[in-house]
């Protein structure tokens, strides 16, 4: 459905009436920077981009769009990796980039109240003078905003011990599509009524527009220490992870990289990684000084028993940061060795790791596309990076097909299609594999309770049943199609 040109003009006129002229963009060249988020394979120009700077202005934009029946896509820094902030051709992009103020750091209650456009890392920087920090640390934390983190329920490398965004947010102020301001949670540990914080976190801009966030701050651990272990076999590395956790240790970070990822990172960062290893594990323990000393000894012992060919404890903070620098630069490092790469985000039960990696290796051969695997091993979140060249005709399509098979595999072993990047536009088809029509219908009912007109980021995150039918990916249980009454294409 394309909005008519006269309607577009009326919309832009209405937006200019409520916002300063510099806060409404509608010329194609001004819209261009907003055509995609971090998933640049998907691009679309919106009708307009709005850059409000007060809650009243956001409300006014929403009311205009509500009254004119125009879809709205909220956007933070645009670092998302699933096309969640991809514009809609018949819609408006609502940028929260000007909401950059840290409203309050309350060290006694260990909370910070911030506007949605505040960068993730800026919160920890503001809390640092009090010995506090904000725990979730997605790899884009220098650039990504807290509003986007809440919308996507972002993770990072410390989730096993410190949780995802949903575990670290206490309160939200949210505008609904009809301009109603809701206060959800606050500075206390809980709130009366339903747990709307849980619903809002990770709702990918489908339920409301976040205009303020209250986050929990934690004391910085007294000490952190990392061990690097090399393995000649990825299966052994995977088993070592289970042994560490089985021994009662919950590492602050537990990461695994396979050989291709190790070599790419080492070429780029010179972290001192063993480039001959089939896999490396980085295991960081943090906490009280004495506890860390105890656990490092145990971890070293477990790694050796698990068959590590080399176990190295970082000597001092500089080497610890170097070990991590290699891991944190793994994505751009892979970007250096391939014209393009496609990052997947499935989660699997850890015990299924070896069969999943073997199957990915088989598929890699089948498709003739190399894969580097980077794995949040502690929490089972796997990021296979498929290396491809978008300039070769058909290669992107083959890459997407390969990626889709990896996600189907994650679902088949009892995992999920997305651990931390969100569904967005990218994985909308795979949602039909992960959920049966009844669950998808329930999601739509939840959306309808917040946004009855379906104007907030429509078409993302939750597929319609018709879309699933078109996608040809309906659940087939016992040979029977779940909704035989639906048309198939």
């Amino acid at each position, binding site marked *: 459905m394309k909005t008519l040109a006269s309607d577009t003009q009326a919309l832009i006129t209405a937006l200019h009436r409520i916002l300063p002229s510099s806060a409404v963009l509608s010329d194609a060249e001004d819209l261009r920077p907003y055509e995609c988020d971090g998933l640049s394979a998907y691009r679309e120009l919106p009708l307009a981009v709005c850059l409000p700077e007060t809650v009243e202005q956001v409300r006014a934009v929403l009311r205009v769009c509500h009254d004119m029946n125009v879809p709205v896509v909220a956007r933070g820094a645009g670092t998302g990796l699933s096309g969640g902030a991809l514009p809609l051709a018949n819609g408006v992009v609502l940028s929260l980039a000007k909401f950059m103020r840290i409203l309050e750091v309350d060290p006694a209650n260990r909370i910070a109240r911030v506007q949605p456009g505040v960068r993730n890392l800026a919160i920890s920087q503001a809390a640092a003078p009090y010995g506090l920090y904000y725990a979730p640390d997605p790899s884009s934390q220098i650039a990504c905003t807290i509003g986007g983190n809440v919308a996507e329920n972002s993770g990072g490398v410390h989730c096993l011990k410190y949780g*995802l965004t949903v575990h670290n947010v206490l309160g939200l102020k949210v505008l609904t599509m009809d301009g109603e301001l809701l206060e959800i949670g*606050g500075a206390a540990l809980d709130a009366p009524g339903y*747990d709307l914080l849980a619903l809002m976190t990770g709702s990918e801009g489908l339920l409301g527009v976040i205009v303020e966030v209250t986050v929990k701050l934690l004391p910085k651990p007294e000490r952190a220490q990392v061990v690097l272990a090399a393995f000649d076999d990825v299966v052994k590395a995977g088993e070592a992870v289970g042994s560490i956790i089985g021994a009662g240790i*919950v590492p602050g970070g537990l990461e695994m990289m396979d050989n291709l990822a190790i070599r790419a990172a080492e070429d780029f960062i010179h972290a001192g990684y063993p480039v001959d290893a089939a896999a490396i594990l980085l295991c960081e323990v943090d*906490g009280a000084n004495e506890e860390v000393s105890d656990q490092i000894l145990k971890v070293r012992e477990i790694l050796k028993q698990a068959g590590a060919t080399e176990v190295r404890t970082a000597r001092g903070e500089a080497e610890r940061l170097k070990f991590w620098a290699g891991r944190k630069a793994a994505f751009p490092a892979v970007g250096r060795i391939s014209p393009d790469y496609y990052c997947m985000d499935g989660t699997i039960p850890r015990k299924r790791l070896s069969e999943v990696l073997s199957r990915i290796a088989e598929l890699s051969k089948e498709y003739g596309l190399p894969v580097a695997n980077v794995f949040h091993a502690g929490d089972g979140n796997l990021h296979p990076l498929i290396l491809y060249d978008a300039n070769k005709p058909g290669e992107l399509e083959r890459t997407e097909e390969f990626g889709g098979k990896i996600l189907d595999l994650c679902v088949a072993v009892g995992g999920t299609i997305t651990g*931390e990047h969100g569904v967005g536009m990218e994985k909308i088809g795979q949602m039909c594999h992960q959920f049966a029509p009844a*669950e998808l219908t*329930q999601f739509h009912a939840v959306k309808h309770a917040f946004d009855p007109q379906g104007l907030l980021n429509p078409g993302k995150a939750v597929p319609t049943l018709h879309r699933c039918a078109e996608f040809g990916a309906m659940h087939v249980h016992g040979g029977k199609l779940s909704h035989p009454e639906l048309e198939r294409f």
Partner: protein
Amino acid sequence: MTPDTDISAALQANLLEAIAQGSPVQIVSGGSKTFYGRAPQGEPLSVTGHRGVISYEPTELVITARAGTRLADVEALLAEHNQMLPFEPPHFTGNATLGGAIATGLSGPRRPYAGSARDFVLGIKVLTGKGEILSFGGQVMKNVAGFDVSRFMAGSLGTLGILLEISLKVLPRPESEQTLLFECSALEAIQRMNAWAGQPLPLSGAVFDGGRLYLRLSGSTAALNAAREKLGGELFADGPAFWRDARDHTCTFFQGDAPLWRVSVPAATPPLDLPGEWLIDWGGAQRWLKTSCAPATIRELTAKAGGHATLFRGGDRQGAVFHPLPPALMALHRRLKAAFDPHGILNLGRMYSDL
């Protein structure tokens, strides 16, 4: 342990019958928290027969069990593998079930340091008010596919659906625990609890009761000894019994018939000027008040402090037990209730009179 049984088909048939009759249903389980919420209405439908651990993988840190499984059985199994439910759910009279723990969303003294009941929910299978059995979330730590309906169910008091199966993240039990004791005033206790919580100390409980601050430490023995050096205080020998009593409301403070209020405020809030007796838990974030003071006064002062108050036990169970919501939020609650329970028959009025 009682034998494992799966009665989901029977529960579904019963619920469909109730939907057809338009007859409200009151979900019952172990009965340890019948006192909680507004007075139950409707025909009792028991889930206690729906029990048993479905899967438990100690190295994956995940357990999945049916809702009617006794909490004590779940915890005993975890303890065999040196693991625990980190949110320390209250058992109260002892027959508490996993379903009840998640449906009420209540957590014990470890909550401010480890997380709440809902924080540990990974997935659920639920029989909604439409009579459908749906699954959300899963058995993995990180999962952002679809709205987080599993955690949304925690604390919804059975008003949206009947929980059938629950997957939870579990954690290793700490190597050792110690309880330290300090004599001080309520104000000093709140200040100390919060100052300590802002430092990298191995805290796992902080309660103030009767002029005494009880502090629990969890971790390696070496770490606990080092923390004690910093904190001072007196070593309290009867720690495990004390924390169990605080969790289950079996200590002296909770005896008697006066209405018991649960006051949830930002942790560092100074003592509230309300008449009655106080027990402060959760490092200041959860305070218990025994009082006959007017509900409106309690709610006004609590709201002013940025919190909310629940008439936890006793008092008028027909009235407003939970803190009233602003109109726009209440309207959203009604729409969400209708999205899961369109016939309005599940635990009607248990949370708010018209939900």
